[in-house]
């Protein structure tokens, strides 16, 4: 299906050009509003199959907003309005007639705060399987999801225990297991490590590089090293508050190595050199 995705008109900015048939999603935001407030403009990002795409930028520049746009989580915000296109499987997910609930099943999400449900570990992971009416062997799927999230060995003897009884890092891996149990095509992660300690962070990063083999991942991070370590492509978003603006936009999108070693734009250079955060 991905082969039928048409490339969206290229931006004036240099955009890494992975082969078109490799692009799973193409996000093209012209304008995005919360009520009267224009939060993001002119942001066009291709998301390539089996790669990790990172969004970086100062806080408030709209990274989370862009990410939530990719599976229509913003629809839950009263007053949200979107102009643009998000291509997925040959269609625009914002087309009338497309059910946001369906979109979210194909494009899973992991949040900043670990958010397991107040139920057993098993039920947490099986939640999505039940939603999707999965008829096969649930226990096997739960096991493989927990293995995929590198959590199986730690919880295999206490699957009936509450998900809330785990440590923060374990809870986040449980949430990853829950998200990948239904094998969505794309996985969105909004600062998945920012509530975790360095060791748990390291584990999740390893996990992400591992998951890339099976899934396509888009991640928001405020940690530049993390983007450098794990991301294949990186987009830099920016909002120039000094000029009184509050609307974020994409400044630069490149292969990570190139973006970090040879940023083209003044703002990117300054941000990467750590002149503001």
């Amino acid at each position: 299906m991905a082969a039928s995705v048409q490339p969206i008109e290229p931006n004036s900015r240099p955009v890494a050009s992975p082969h078109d048939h490799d692009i799973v999603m193409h996000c093209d935001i012209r304008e995005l509003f919360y009520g009267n407030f224009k939060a993001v403009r002119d942001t066009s990002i291709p998301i390539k199959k089996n790669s990790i795409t990172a969004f970086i930028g100062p806080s408030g520049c709209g990274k989370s907003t862009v990410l939530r746009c990719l599976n229509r989580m913003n629809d839950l915000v009263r007053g949200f309005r979107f102009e643009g296109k998000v291509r997925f499987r040959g269609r625009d997910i914002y087309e009338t007639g497309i059910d946001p609930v369906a979109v979210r099943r194909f494009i899973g999400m992991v949040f900043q705060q670990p958010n397991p449900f107040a139920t057993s570990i098993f039920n947490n992971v099986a939640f999505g399987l039940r939603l999707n009416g999965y008829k096969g062997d649930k226990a096997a799927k739960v096991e493989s999801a927990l293995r995929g999230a590198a959590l199986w060995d730690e919880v295999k003897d206490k699957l009936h225990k509450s998900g809330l009884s785990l440590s923060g890092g374990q809870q986040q891996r449980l949430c990853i297991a829950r998200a990948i149990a239904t094998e969505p095509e794309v996985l969105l992660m909004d600062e998945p490590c920012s509530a975790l300690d360095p060791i748990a962070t390291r584990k999740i990063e390893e996990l992400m590089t591992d998951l890339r083999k099976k899934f396509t991942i888009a991640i928001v991070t405020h940690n530049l090293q993390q983007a450098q370590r794990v991301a294949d492509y990186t987009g830099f978003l920016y909002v120039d508050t000094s000029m009184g603006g509050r609307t974020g936009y994409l400044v630069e999108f490149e292969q990570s190595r190139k973006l970090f070693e040879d940023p083209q734009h003044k703002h990117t250079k300054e941000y990467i050199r750590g002149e503001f955060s």
Partner: protein
Amino acid sequence: MSAHSSAQPGLPVLPGALFGSRQGEITQVPSPLQRAVDVTFRRLCHAFAWFTILLVTFIVLRIAMSAAPAMREQGWGFLTGRVWDANAGQFGILAQIWGTLYTSILALILGTAFGVAAAVFLSEGFLGSTIFGLLKYFGVHLHPWWGRLPDQIERILKELIELLAAIPSVVYGLWGIFVVIPLIRPLCHALHEHAGWIPLFSTDLSGPGVLPAVIVLAIMIMPTVTAISRDALVSVPVKLRMAAYGLGATRWESIFAVILPTASRGIAGGIVLAFGRALGETMALAMLVGNSNQINLSLFSPANTLAALLANNFPEAGPREVGLLMYAALVLLGITLVVNIMGAFILQRAAKNAAE
């Protein structure tokens, strides 16, 4: 510099203040006044807490003492007798116990169903988004005044429902007699005609009875259930809702599979509280239940409750009847206590299960 400067030998150590301020320091030990206020406040709290406990004990003891002669005289037979006839000297409260539990449980089922539904409606923004959609249709959803309407109306509705709890129960009773009974009578009549073989409809409604009492009682306890359930639902963390939606759950799936279970402890607390209120509700029931000592499954039959028995018989009670009524009061107290303890137990179990 010594690492243990506080343990300098030779300096006198003041009791309660192991160290004092140095010159020019902002940090100070608490002043005597601060300490006095702290101690007084703590003692007052203790005193009030104990006073409440003592008061409850005192009330129960006094009732038990007044009931003691009747208890000796009547024994357990009081609880199993179905007749209350002062002229014949026969006293039994089984019918009242039955009526109390039957009306309360039915009202609880009805009140919980509507109360929780209302709480979901109020907490999940259904009303808000409907009004927002309407405003959007007219293009004023971002208007500084109109734009605030969805939240305002939700708040007003919530307050209105809570206001239901403030209506005096005698008003409910009057409303039940003059509005509810005439309103439901044709329906009850038809049900009895056509489905009389079902025990619930086996008699006809001739005025006051179980059903009008249950309806009014359900309306009376609904605000309690709604208010407490709404608070519990609102305090379900947003991140859990997001987790459910992010997995591709529909609105109803996230409400039933995630939000209600997470809030279930608070909701159960509300239900227990409402049940307590239903058991003890007196005035409206005395007006609506029919005050007839029957044990009957029929919703349309008149019945009696313990609280109504007490209210109806107190005025003409001689010393002997007062003892009997005290005995009945003790039974009512016992039932309420058992319900509350069971409720507390269930809540505790639920809390433990959620955390393990």
